[in-house]
C-alpha cells in the first residue's frame, strides 16, 4: 500500500513537473531565437502576462481553449513586433527597453482584468490527450503521454527549433547575425529582417506561453506569471543558447517546482516555511545558471544594435 502511494506520488510529481515546465519552455525557446540573432528581449514576462490575460478572457467569452491560444499568438506577434521596432529599428538599449515592455504588460493585463472581468472566474482548461499506445505503458505512459496537446507541442518545438537553427539557411542567418552582423550584412543577409523575424518568433512563443499558463490553470490574476518570463530568459543562458539545453533548464525548474508543491501538500514543508520554499525553483535555477552557463560563450553581438557602416 505504502509502495503504491509512493509510486503514485512520484508519477504525479514528474507529470506535473513536465506540465509546469511548458510555459517556461515555450518562452525560452522563443527567447533563444532572439538571442541567437543578437537581441535580448527582457519584455518576455510582460508579453506572457498579456498573452495570459488575452487567452483567459477569450476562453471566458467563447469557451474555446483553441481560440484562447490563438489570441495568445496574436498578442505575442503584435508585442514581438513592437519589441523588434524598439530594439532593432530604434536601436534602444536592450537592457532597459525590455523592462518597459514588461511593465506595460504587467500593468495593462491587470487593468484589463479589473475592467473587463473584475472577480476571478475559472474557465475550462485544455482537454487531456492520451497518445494512443504510448499512454498505456505503465508508469512512463502516465508520466509522459497523458498530457494536454500544448505539452506535446511545446516539447515538439525543441527538435523543430534545433533543426531550424542548425540545418536551415534561415538558422544559419540567425547564427551569423548574432555573432557578426557586419559580416552577414556584407554578404547580403538582412540583419534587420532576420532580427525582426526572430524577435517576433520570440514574442509569439511568449504569447503562447502566457496563454498556455492561464488556460492550463483555468484562471487569471494579477501578475499570474510570477516572473516566469525572467526565469525563461535566464534559462536561455543556462541552456547555452541551445534548444536542448533550454529544455533541460525548463524541466529542472518544473521538477523542482512540482517537488516543492508536492512537499507542501504532504506537509513535509511546514506552512510557515512555504513562502521561502516557493523561492526554491528560482534560487536553484540561478545557482545552476552561475555554475553551468559560464562555460559557454554568448552570441558575440548579443544586445548590440546594428548600424551599417558604423
Amino acid at each position, binding site marked *: 500500500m505504502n509502495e503504491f502511494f509512493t509510486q503514485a506520488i512520484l508519477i504525479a510529481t514528474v507529470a506535473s513537473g513536465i506540465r509546469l515546465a511548458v510555459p517556461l519552455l515555450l518562452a525560452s525557446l522563443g527567447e533563444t531565437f532572439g538571442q541567437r540573432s543578437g537581441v535580448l528581449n527582457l519584455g518576455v514576462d510582460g508579453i506572457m502576462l498579456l498573452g495570459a490575460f488575452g487567452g483567459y478572457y477569450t476562453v471566458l467569452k467563447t469557451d474555446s481553449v483553441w481560440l484562447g491560444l490563438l489570441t495568445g499568438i496574436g498578442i505575442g506577434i503584435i508585442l514581438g513586433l513592437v519589441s523588434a521596432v524598439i530594439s532593432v529599428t530604434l536601436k534602444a538599449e536592450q537592457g532597459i527597453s525590455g523592462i518597459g515592455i514588461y511593465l506595460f504588460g504587467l500593468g495593462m493585463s491587470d487593468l484589463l482584468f479589473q475592467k473587463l472581468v473584475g472577480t476571478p472566474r475559472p474557465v475550462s482548461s485544455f482537454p487531456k490527450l492520451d497518445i494512443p499506445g504510448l499512454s498505456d505503458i505503465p508508469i512512463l505512459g502516465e508520466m509522459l503521454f497523458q498530457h494536454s496537446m500544448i505539452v506535446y507541442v511545446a516539447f515538439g518545438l525543441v527538435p523543430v527549433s534545433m533543426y531550424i537553427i542548425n540545418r536551415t539557411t534561415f538558422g544559419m542567418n540567425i547564427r*551569423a547575425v548574432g555573432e557578426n552582423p557586419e559580416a*552577414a550584412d*556584407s554578404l547580403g543577409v538582412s540583419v534587420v529582417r532576420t532580427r525582426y523575424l526572430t524577435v517576433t518568433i520570440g514574442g509569439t512563443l511568449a504569447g503562447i506561453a502566457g496563454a498556455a499558463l492561464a488556460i492550463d490553470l483555468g484562471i487569471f490574476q494579477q501578475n499570474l506569471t510570477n516572473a516566469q518570463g525572467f526565469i525563461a530568459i535566464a534559462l536561455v543562458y543556462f541552456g547555452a543558447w541551445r534548444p536542448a539545453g533550454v529544455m533541460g533548464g525548463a524541466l529542472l525548474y518544473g521538477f523542482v517546482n512540482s517537488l516543492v508543491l508536492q512537499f507542501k501538500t504532504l506537509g513535509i514543508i511546514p506552512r510557515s516555511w512555504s513562502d521561502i520554499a516557493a523561492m526554491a525553483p528560482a534560487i536553484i535555477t540561478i545557482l545552476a545558471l552561475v555554475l553551468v552557463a559560464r562555460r559557454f560563450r554568448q552570441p558575440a553581438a548579443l544586445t548590440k544594435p546594428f548600424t551599417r557602416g558604423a
Partner: protein
Amino acid sequence: MSDVPMLEMRGITKRFPGVLANYRVDFDVRSGEVHTLLGENGAGKSTLMKILYGLYQADEGEILLNGEPVEIHSPMDAIERNIGMIHQHFMLVETLTVAENVALGLPSDRGFRTDLDAVSERIEALAERYGLSIDPSAIVWQLAVGQRQRVEIIKALYREANLLILDEPTAVLTPQEVDQLFVTLRQMTADGRGLIFISHKLHEVLALSDRITVLRQGHITGKVPVEGATRESLAEMMVGRQVKLVPDKPPVEVGSAALEISGLRVVGDRGHETVRGLNLEVRAGEILGIAGVSGNGQREMAQAIAGLREVTGGSIRIGGVETTNLKPAEIRKHGLAYVTEGRLRDGAIADFSVSENIMLIDHADPRYLNRGLMDFRAIREHSQMLVDQYAVKTPNLETPAKNLSGGNIQKMILAREMSGTPTVLVASQPTRGVDIGAAEYIHSRLVQQRAEDTAILMISEDLDEVFALSDRIAVIYEGEIIGIVDPAAATREQVGLMMAGVRPEA
C-alpha cells in the same frame, strides 16, 4: 580585352558632417590589372570603396560597370554585379564553419535547407585553382589569420567576383604569406579579373600594382603607372611634402642591460601559456625591435613587463632591479614607460581631456598637488609644456582625447610616457594606424629617446618600421625569441621565415 574599363567611377563626391571625404574622384579599373588606391588614414580610400560596395551612397558622381551606368545601394547589389570585397577586418563569423561562411547569404540548392556538402565541393575546386588550400568543415575561430584571409578570398570567388576590392589585405600576414597571396592575386588577374588594392605599405604597392592612384584629404593627388614610381615619390603624394621614410640614426654608445627578461612565462586570455620561457635583454641606448606575427605572445610579454599580467615563471629586471609581478605603479617608479598597442583601449581614456590623459600617471605626484588636492595651475602648465614639446595638435587642453586624430593621440601618449625620462620604454605598435607625417615624428622621437640612453623595446607588426628603427631585431614565435639578427645584415626574407617559425641556422 575591350577598351571599356570594367569599372569607372566618375566625379565621386561624398560629404559627411564637417568632412569632405571624397571630392570629384575619378577612378577606373581595367580587366586584368591591379590598380592601387593609396593614401593616409582619412584620405578617403575606404569611403570610395564603401561607395563602390554599396555601404555608402555618393552625393555626386556616377559609377559605370563595363560602360553601363549602375546604382549600387547595398552590398547585395554589389555582389550581384560581381564586385567582391576583402575587408581589412575580416568579415567572418567565427562560430560558423568555412563552408557556412561561404554559403551565407546565398540561396541553397535545397531551398529551405542548407546544402553545405555541395558548397564544400565547389570550395575545394576553387581552392585548388588558386592555391588556397582550406578545409571547408573547419570552424573559423580555429583558423590562423592567413587561412582566414583565404576564406575571405574564396567567399568572393565563390560569388564570381570579377572586380575585387582588397582593403589592406597584407596587414596581418607574414612576408611569406604575402608572397603566397600575391601569387593568388596574379592568378586572378591572369583570369581577367580586375583588382583594387588598398595599402599603405609602399614596397608592396610597388611590387603588385599596375597603376597607382593617390588620395589626400579626399582629393586625387596623383595617378601614376608603377613604372617610374618610387617609395619616396608616392609618400610625397600621400603627405604633400617630402617625407623621411627612414629616420637618421646617429650612432649611440650602447650601455649596460636595462631590461633583462629571463625564462619568462605568461598565460594569455584563453588560459593557454602564450609566453614560453622567453629570454631577452635590451641595453641602454638601443632600440630592440620585436618582429613577429601578431598573437605570438608579444602582447602578453609587454603586459607582463608592465605588471598588467601575471608572470607565472621567470623574471624581469629593470635597471638591475627585480620587478617581476610588482604593481604597475611600482614598476613605473623603477623607470618603465609603456606605450600600449590599443591607443584608446588602454593607452588613453577617450572621454578624458588631453590634460587629464597626460596626468594619468602623475596625478598623485606632489608636484601637481596642493594640500592633497589637484593643483590645476601646475597641471595646466605641465600639460601645456608637453603638448607644445611633442607637437600634439589639439584645439586646447580640455578637448577630449577621442576628438584627436590617431597620430595626435599617439603623440600625447608618447609625451606622457617619456616625460619622466624612462630607463626602459616598451612601445607596442607605436605607429599602427597613424599617418605618415605623425609616424615620421614618432620615429624621430624614439630615436631621440635612444640618444638619451633609454632602452627601447619596440614591438611592431610593420617590418619596414622594425628594419628602419631597430639596432637589433628579435623575432618572436610562439612565445619564444627564436633568433636575434642585425638589421643591416639580415634580409626581410630571413626575418619572414623566422616569423613563420623557421629557426635560423646556428
